[in-house]
């Protein structure tokens, strides 16, 4: 990670709601859902608000302490999943209530992918042209 790591939500197609402190994120463009553990939800909310990732290191969370490798792995996942992008904007300060909220969590930093669309793709196909096949080529459910 850089000395000061700020991130932003990757696009306007990434929307999220929070339920009792637990976040659910949807990528509107492809219909994939993401569920976070309790500590992951707090960290997602912080990172997506532009809070400096460095400020999270060392905070108590999920019955342990957030280490740089663990946080780096979590952020890498969010980048690979297309949920976050690096931001050049000035990082936001750590919200005052966040350390206590993180300390109250019981699960490690995790994000789970919910891609239950295999059957729906058949009903409601998403088509993409593949040059060798020509048009139309229906994307098959995996």
């Amino acid at each position, binding site marked *: 990670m850089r000395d000061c790591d700020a991130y932003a939500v990757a696009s306007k197609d990434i*929307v999220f*709601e929070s339920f009792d402190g637990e976040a659910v994120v*949807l990528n509107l463009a492809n219909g994939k859902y993401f569920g976070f553990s309790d500590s992951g*939800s707090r960290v997602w909310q912080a990172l997506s608000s532009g809070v400096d990732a460095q400020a999270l290191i060392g905070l108590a969370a999920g019955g342990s302490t957030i280490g740089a490798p663990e946080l780096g792995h979590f952020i890498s996942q969010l980048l690979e999943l297309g949920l976050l992008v690096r931001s050049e904007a000035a990082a936001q300060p750590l919200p005052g209530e966040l350390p206590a909220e993180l300390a109250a969590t019981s699960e490690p930093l995790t994000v789970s992918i919910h891609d239950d669309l295999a059957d*729906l793709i058949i009903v409601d196909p998403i088509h993409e042209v593949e040059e060798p096949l020509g048009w139309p080529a*229906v994307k098959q459910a995996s």
Partner: protein
Amino acid sequence: MPRVTLETLPDYARYLVAATEATHYPATRTVRLPRLELTAHVGPGALAEALGHAFVEAEDDEAEPSAECRVFTVHPGIDGIPEPARWGDAHFTEYGFAERLAETGLRGHYFHDLDFWQVYDPQRRVGVQLMATADAFPPWEPTAPLRAFLHWEYAARGMRLTHAGTLGADGKGVLLAGAGGAGKSGTVTAGLLNGLDSVGDDYVLIDLAAGVTARPLFSTLKQDPQGFERLGLRQRLGTERPLNWQGKHTFHIADIAARPVPAALDIVALVVPHIGGGETSSIMPVSRRDAMIALAPSGIMQMPGERESGFRFFGDLTRLLPSYRLSLGTHPEEIAGTIADFLTRGVP
């Protein structure tokens, strides 16, 4: 055959509406639905037949402000109706298609395999379903005919077609949410067979104006052959009717319900069923996050457009209700009894 791209899509959609309205194609079916009178202009055939039996018609209710919408289901051969265009861009996504139309105040859906177009103008409440021939519609269309138009119309008014089952008693009910195979349809059928009410299985209309209210739209129920046998439906309904496109038996709420379909259910809980594997059923609290993930994905992805508004709507719905996981036992009577007890007394 003309080709339509994202660039020309809004013009083509408006052209379809104008060309279809100019035909003065006669109306053949009017359906009274909650707060909506749907007039369908449709020729004889399977779609017209489906319109005749797929809906639960609403009672007159002067207290409920109603709107009127018209949907033309047309095809070449009807005077003035053009051949359906084909998609001409290199890429197509349902989301990009819907977003482009929404920019110009329209809603729409395109099913490539059949060059099947649906376009709706929510401001004028006029829709067009253009097919290559009279029977060139997707196989799932007769089960819930014109559902996309109802989705757009109700979404424009803050309500939502929701992919969920319902069971209730004495006006109170639960919303059963989950992906296909979770046990929703079997649970609804088990409940109906054992004296509970339902306002629908696959799609119900949800309104959040005063709590969470579920209203009926479609009367169709489905069961795969194993469930049909297990629930005793083969003896009750026979097997003469052809299976649907999914290989499932289809029947109607009135075929098995003890009472007429209620006009509405006040929803008191969001329930996520799953096949428990045990003899008896149980109901336990589940996090709202898990309930939302069970409810929202299929509800949003089975309907064209309105994805973000749907996500927000289902988020609001989930916050309004307590959420539970229902582990399904193996006996239909016991499952129905568990839900009836839950509705009467709350969580055991």
